[in-house]
C-alpha cells in the first residue's frame, strides 16, 4: 500500500456550525454518488423548476439576488437577462477553471458534489432555453474530472440529462471539457476562446458580456461553479428563504478558503455580510487564531488579485460592498493570512511572479510590466536593489493600472490610495492584478524595501541592463 492516501476525504473542508446551502452533503463519505445525492433531496430542485414556467425560474433567481461567486460578484439573474431574445441557440458555459492563488472552493464542489452542479446547470438551461452546456474544468484537477464524468454518465443513464428529461419536453446535453493549465482561461472570454480550440487569450471588449456574442458567436452565459451550485437549494426553498441568510445586499452564503498562518486553515461556508474577518480568523468555530500565538501582519482578502488588508480592517464583514469601500475585494473567496514572520517583499514577489508567468502576452503593459516588476523585486530581494527601485516599481504599476499611488511621505493616506477597482490599460484584469501586492506592501512596509536596498551609494540611479532574476 502506498504510504500516502490519494486525496483524503474532503481535504481542507471544515464542517462548522452554521447554515449550509452548498456544502450540506460534504460530510458524507460518498457525497459524490447519485445514490447519496438522490437520498438527500437530489434533483428535487430540478423537479421544482420544471413545474414552473422558465421565466418564473429566472424571476426566482433575480429575486433571490444570487451574486456570481467567481470573483466579480455580478448578480446572476441580471446577467442572464442580457441574452438577446430570439438569437438561438444559446450556450451555457460553466467556469470550473479555478486557479486564483489561494482559491479552491470550486474544486471541492466539483469533487464532493458534482450532481449539485449538474442540477444547477439543468435549472439554468431550463430557465433560459439553452439546449447545450459545456462544463469546463481546470486541467490539473484530475479527481474533479473523474467525478464529474461519472456523475454525468449516471445522470444520462437515469434520464436526468439528455433527451426528454424526467419525461418532459426539456432536453439538454452537457459536455465535460477540460483545460490544460493556463490561469487566464478563468477569464470568461478567454475561456470561450479556449473552448473554441484556440489559445486562451481574452477577447477585446465591448461587448462586455458574452451574453451578447459568445461561444461560436452566439449568446453565451458563463457562470461559476459555486453560483450554479446554489440553484438547486434555491429552487427547493424559494427566494424568500434564501434571503434569510446573509445580508440584504448579499444574500446567501459563500465558501471561503483561509490558508496561511492560521491554526485551522480550511474552506468554510459562511454567511455573507455577517461573519467578520476577525471572527473568521480568531473564532472557535473557524480558524481559531493565528498560529502558535503569532501576530497578524497582513492578509489577502480575496485571491491574489485583491489589494491587501492589515489588522485595522479585521472588523469588516465579508461582504462585497464594505470590503470594496475599504479598497479591496472578496473576489474568489480566498484569504491568505500572514503573520509577523513574513517578509513583505518576498510575499509580494511571489504573487507578482505568478502574474508574470501567467500573462498571456496579448497586451504590452501586462506582458512587459509584470516581467519587469518581477525582476526589480527579485533584485531588491537579492540585495542588488537600487535607491530608485521603489519609485520605479510604482511607476511601472502606474503604467499598468493608472491611478493615485501611495505616498510614503504621507503615511496618513488610507488604503483607498491604492487604485481600486483597477483602471486597466489592458483587455483583462490580469496585469492590473499584479499591482496590488506591490502597492499594498510599499505603502505599509516601505521600510522593509529600504532595508533591503543596501548598496545605496554604489549603484548608479539610471536604469542599467537588468539580469533576469533566477
Amino acid at each position, binding site marked *: 500500500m502506498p*504510504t500516502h492516501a490519494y486525496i483524503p476525504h474532503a481535504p481542507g473542508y471544515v464542517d462548522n456550525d452554521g447554515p449550509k446551502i452548498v456544502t450540506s452533503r460534504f460530510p458524507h463519505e460518498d457525497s459524490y454518488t447519485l445514490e447519496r445525492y438522490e437520498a438527500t433531496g437530489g434533483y428535487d430542485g430540478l423537479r421544482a423548476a420544471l413545474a414552473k414556467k422558465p421565466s418564473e425560474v429566472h424571476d426566482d433567481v433575480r429575486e433571490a439576488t444570487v451574486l456570481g461567486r467567481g470573483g466579480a460578484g455580478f448578480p446572476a439573474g441580471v446577467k442572464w437577462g442580457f441574452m438577446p431574445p430570439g438569437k438561438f*441557440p444559446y450556450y451555457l458555459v460553466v467556469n470550473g477553471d479555478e486557479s486564483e492563488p489561494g482559491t479552491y472552493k470550486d474544486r471541492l464542489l466539483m469533487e464532493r458534489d458534482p450532481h449539485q452542479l449538474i442540477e444547477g446547470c439543468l435549472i439554468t438551461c431550463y430557465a433560459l432555453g439553452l439546449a447545450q452546456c459545456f462544463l469546463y474544468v481546470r486541467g490539473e484537477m484530475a479527481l474533479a474530472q473523474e467525478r*464529474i*464524468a461519472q456523475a454525468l454518465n449516471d445522470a444520462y443513464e437515469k434520464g436526468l440529462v439528455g433527451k426528454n428529461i424526467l419525461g418532459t419536453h426539456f432536453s439538454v446535453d452537457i459536455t465535460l471539457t477540460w483545460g*490544460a493549465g493556463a490561469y487566464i482561461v478563468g477569464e470568461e472570454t478567454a475561456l470561450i476562446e479556449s473552448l473554441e480550440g484556440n*489559445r486562451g487569450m481574452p477577447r477585446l471588449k465591448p461587448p462586455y458580456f458574452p451574453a451578447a456574442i459568445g461561444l461560436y458567436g452566439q449568446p453565451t452565459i458563463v457562470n461559476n461553479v459555486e453560483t450554479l451550485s446554489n440553484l438547486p437549494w434555491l429552487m427547493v426553498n424559494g427566494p424568500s428563504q434564501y434571503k434569510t441568510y446573509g445580508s440584504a445586499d448579499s444574500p446567501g452564503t459563500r465558501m471561503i478558503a483561509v490558508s496561511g498562518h492560521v491554526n485551522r486553515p480550511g474552506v468554510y461556508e459562511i454567511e455573507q455580510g455577517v461573519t467578520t474577518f476577525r471572527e473568521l480568523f480568531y473564532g472557535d468555530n473557524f480558524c481559531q487564531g493565528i498560529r502558535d500565538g503569532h501576530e497578524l501582519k497582513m492578509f489577502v482578502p480575496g485571491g491574489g488579485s485583491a489589494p491587501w488588508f492589515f489588522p485595522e480592517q479585521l472588523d469588516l464583514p465579508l461582504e462585497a460592498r464594505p470590503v470594496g469601500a475599504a479598497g479591496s475585494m472578496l473576489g474568489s473567496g480566498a484569504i491568505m493570512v*500572514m503573520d509577523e514572520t513574513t517578509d513583505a517583499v518576498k510575499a509580494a514577489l511571489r504573487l507578482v511572479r505568478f502574474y508574470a508567468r501567467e500573462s498571456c502576452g496579448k497586451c504590452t503593459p501586462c506582458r512587459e510590466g509584470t516581467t519587469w516588476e518581477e525582476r526589480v523585486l527579485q533584485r531588491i530581494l537579492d540585495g542588488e536593489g537600487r535607491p530608485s527601485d521603489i519609485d520605479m516599481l510604482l511607476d511601472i504599476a502606474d503604467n499598468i493600472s493608472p491611478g493615485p499611488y501611495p505616498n510614503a511621505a504621507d503615511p496618513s493616506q488610507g488604503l483607498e490610495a491604492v487604485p481600486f477597482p483597477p483602471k486597466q490599460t489592458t483587455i483583462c484584469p490580469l496585469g492590473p492584478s499584479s499591482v496590488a501586492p506591490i502597492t499594498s506592501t510599499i505603502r505599509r512596509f516601505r521600510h522593509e524595501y529600504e532595508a533591503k536596498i543596501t548598496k545605496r551609494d554604489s549603484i548608479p540611479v539610471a536604469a542599467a541592463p537588468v539580469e533576469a532574476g533566477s
Partner: protein
Amino acid sequence: MSRFSDANLAIATDIISRYPVKKSALIPLLHLAQEQDGYVTDDAMRHIAELTGTTPAEVKGTGSFYEMFKFHPVGTYMVNVCTNLSCQLLGGEELLDHAEKTLGVKAGGTTADGMFTLEDVECIAACTEAPCLQVNYRYKLRMSHDEFDQMIEDLRSGRADDIPAHGTLATIRQAIPAGKGAGIVPPEDAREAPVWLARNDSSEEG
C-alpha cells in the same frame, strides 16, 4: 511516433461529436494524444489536424499555449511542487529545494532513468493543505521532506499504485449512452427556441 490507435480513434471520434464545431475538440484530443504516448508527438498533431479540419500549425499553436502539454518526452511521473504564496508561507520553496536534492535534478529537469520530471508550479488549489504537490495531477498534501522521500521510493519500486502514468488524467470518461443524448445541433439548424421554452413561455423574454 504514432497516430491514434484504433481504440483511441474511436474515443476521439466520440469526443469530436460532442461539439457543434470540430475545432473545439482540440484540447481534449491533445490530452488523448498525451495519454497514448506520454507526450504530444508531431504525428499525433498531424492526426489531430486531420480529424478536426485544422492545420498542424493551428494544433501546435493552441497546444503550446497550455502548460500541461509536453512536446518532448518527460518522466513517467510529473512531480509538480507548488511554491505560490500559501505554500511558500508554509515551506513550499524548501520542499522544492529538497525535491531537487532528492531527485538530483533542477526544477524543469528529468531524472536520468526517465522516471521523474520535477516542476515548480503555480497554485494547484490545495492552499489550506500547504505545502502540497501533484504527481501526475494527483494530490499529495501537507508534505514533509521525509514523506517526499518515501513517496519517491514508493514510486520507484512500483508500490504507489494510486498514481497512473503521465498523461492519463481522467480514467473515467464521459460516455453518453446510446439514444439518451439530446443530440448536438449545429448552430445553423438551431435557430428556433427549444420546444419547452416555446411551449410554456411563448413570447415572454426571460
